[in-house]
């Protein structure tokens, strides 16, 4: 793009938006932009049907396996004593962690006025909500009798018993249900103007009515916009501590126990950094194919890829630092159990393969992001994001399983082998997640249309002003 603009003469919003590479490359008229971004919601096709068939089949499979393990009991899993948490809690932590990038993008970057978030926030928030749904399945199943899952909630029961709020598990229930609810509210609020656009552009009466109901009569009145913007900002400000708290609370499940390898004060920041890191990887895993399939290169630009790659570098480095601290403290504390667990057992025990994979992948993947070539290449980023997802799953696996498998007394040590059911439920929830995500892509405007138009307006009006005043010397691109 050959464009020379003297940045001294432009508004700060403009300078931020076009800071190489620009966050929006298209200058298409607003009507055209709207039609383009709404198109996936209005027209299906054979490839959609195929995609729904595959992921829907996987979802059906998942629920069949879940039904089986509920009917037969969780003896069908590989869990044992002392490895009682195993796959279920590994998957729970992994899914919850993935959700964090969505909230980070939509909330933290909103209050920091990072406009590049606009084209990807809807998308990332949807990922959060669907990931939290997957996560919520596991602790409920892990109870063995999921029909009693509501006992964790403080409701006035006839038994006269209340949950014990000195335990981390009711904290967890409070944190995750709040996280899910607030994310859903935030997601829906953000979607309101776009649902109204979908209503007004709908090709059939049925779609017009359906979108109309969900748009709640939104019509973009300035009074409403005024309340709307402040509400979104408030939700962003509320979700910011929330995103830091949820995985902290999840980490308390581990940290407040006495188990060597878990009993550590580094856990909350360690979990939060890992969560945001893995979440950004998942955003990339989902976004890169979507960007290509729907040809959105002018709306999700290299700038977005680069920004996310940098986030991965930052959070990955924090994560690696916590690995180092964890290892150092296990020696420095002089606690022989801690030292044995973290240094001897993890690095040379039966789970050493997982630990070393984690240490290598989580070092190499983020550090590749130092190279601009990697940061701007969708293929590199896609491959790296998959590797990060794998590494982060293994990290939770070794953290949970390796620690549980060897506590204080060697006589109680026991190894863990997953069963077919364990693996099937995990693969099944991946299908379920993708199924929900496809539903979202198919029926909801998945890129924020009003925010994209707002950015376009900032860019176009500033460029027109520059052209008039003769500050810019634009050559044709």
């Amino acid at each position, binding site marked *: 793009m050959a464009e020379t603009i003297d940045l001294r003469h432009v508004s700060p919003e403009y300078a931020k938006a076009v800071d190489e590479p620009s966050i929006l490359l298209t200058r298409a008229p607003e009507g055209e932009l709207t039609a383009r971004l709404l198109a996936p919601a209005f027209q299906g096709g054979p490839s959609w049907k195929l995609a729904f068939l595959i992921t829907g089949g996987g979802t059906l499979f998942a629920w069949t396996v879940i039904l089986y393990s509920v009917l037969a009991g969780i003896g069908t899993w590989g869990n044992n004593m002392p490895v009682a948490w195993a796959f279920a809690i590994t998957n729970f932590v992994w899914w919850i962690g993935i959700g964090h990038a969505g909230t980070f993008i939509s909330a933290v970057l909103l209050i920091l006025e990072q406009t590049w978030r606009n084209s990807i926030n809807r998308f990332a928030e949807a990922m959060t909500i669907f990931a939290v749904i997957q996560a919520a399945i596991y602790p409920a199943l892990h109870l063995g009798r999921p029909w009693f899952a509501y006992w964790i909630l403080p409701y006035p029961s006839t038994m006269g018993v209340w949950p014990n709020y*000195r335990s981390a598990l009711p904290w967890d229930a409070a944190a995750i249900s709040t996280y899910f609810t607030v994310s859903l*509210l935030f997601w829906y609020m953000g979607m309101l103007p776009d649902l109204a656009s979908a209503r007004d552009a709908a090709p059939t009466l049925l779609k017009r009515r359906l979108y*109309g109901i969900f748009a*709640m009569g939104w019509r973009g*009145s300035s009074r409403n916009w005024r309340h709307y913007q402040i509400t979104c900002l*408030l939700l962003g400000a509320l979700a910011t501590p929330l995103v830091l708290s949820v995985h902290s609370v999840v980490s308390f499940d581990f940290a407040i126990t006495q188990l060597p390898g878990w009993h550590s004060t580094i856990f909350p920041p360690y979990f939060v950094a890992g969560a945001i890191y893995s979440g950004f990887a998942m955003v990339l895993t989902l976004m890169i194919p979507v960007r290509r399939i729907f040809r959105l290169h002018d709306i999700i630009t290299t700038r977005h890829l680069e920004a996310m790659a940098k986030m991965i570098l930052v959070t990955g480095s924090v994560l690696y630092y916590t690995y180092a601290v964890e290892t150092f403290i296990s020696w420095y504390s002089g606690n022989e159990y801690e030292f044995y667990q973290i240094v001897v057992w993890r690095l040379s025990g039966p789970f050493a393969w997982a630990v070393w994979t984690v240490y290598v992948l989580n070092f190499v993947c983020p550090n590749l992001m130092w190279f601009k070539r990697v940061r701007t290449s969708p293929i590199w980023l896609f491959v790296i994001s998959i590797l990060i997802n794998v590494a982060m799953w293994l990290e939770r696996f070794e953290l949970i399983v390796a620690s549980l498998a060897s506590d204080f007394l060697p006589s109680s040590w026991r190894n863990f082998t997953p069963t077919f059911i364990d693996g099937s439920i995990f693969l099944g929830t991946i299908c379920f997640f993708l199924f929900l995500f496809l539903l979202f892509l198919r029926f909801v405007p998945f890129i924020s249309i009003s925010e994209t138009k707002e950015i376009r307006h900032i860019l176009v009006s500033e460029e027109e002003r520059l052209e008039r005043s003769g500050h810019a010397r634009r050559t044709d691109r």
Partner: protein
Amino acid sequence: MRAGLIAEYESPELLLEGVLAMRRSGFVQMDAYTPYPIHGVVEALQLPRSRVPLYCLLGGIAGGTYGYLIQYWMNGFSYALNVGGRPLGSVPAFIPATFEATVLFAAFGAVLAFFGFSGLPEIASPVFGVEGFERATIDRYFLALDASDPAFDPDEARRILGDAGAVRVSWIPQDEGSEVHA
């Protein structure tokens, strides 16, 4: 906006000119309809400050108080649990759930206040009957003048809006007898 004139503009800049022209003529009661928030227009309309943050704060205070007290009551009184001799009011242990309740209630406070102040949901409204209004969420900009404003003069307003570049100026349709628009 229930009754009055509505003008359609092709760009936010023209809409802003319309708003400023009306303001110069002494007209106050108006509202703009735009596909995305336009800073200049919101300022030119001189709308009062949104009170959503107040309700968010109230929600947060209520949630935090309720969240803390209910835990204290549950674990300290209703079903008092002595865990290793720790005090029944275990302040640090009650903080996580208190925080979550604060955030949850504050979020609901903000969202409900937003819907309340915006008058939503309102699936049917006279303004939807305006010709071409379906583009208000896509790529057209509307300025509605409230007929109840004492300074409202339809002919004068039509002239001012037209001079400011309106594509079309029309009345907000009123269909009588419909309970939806009551």
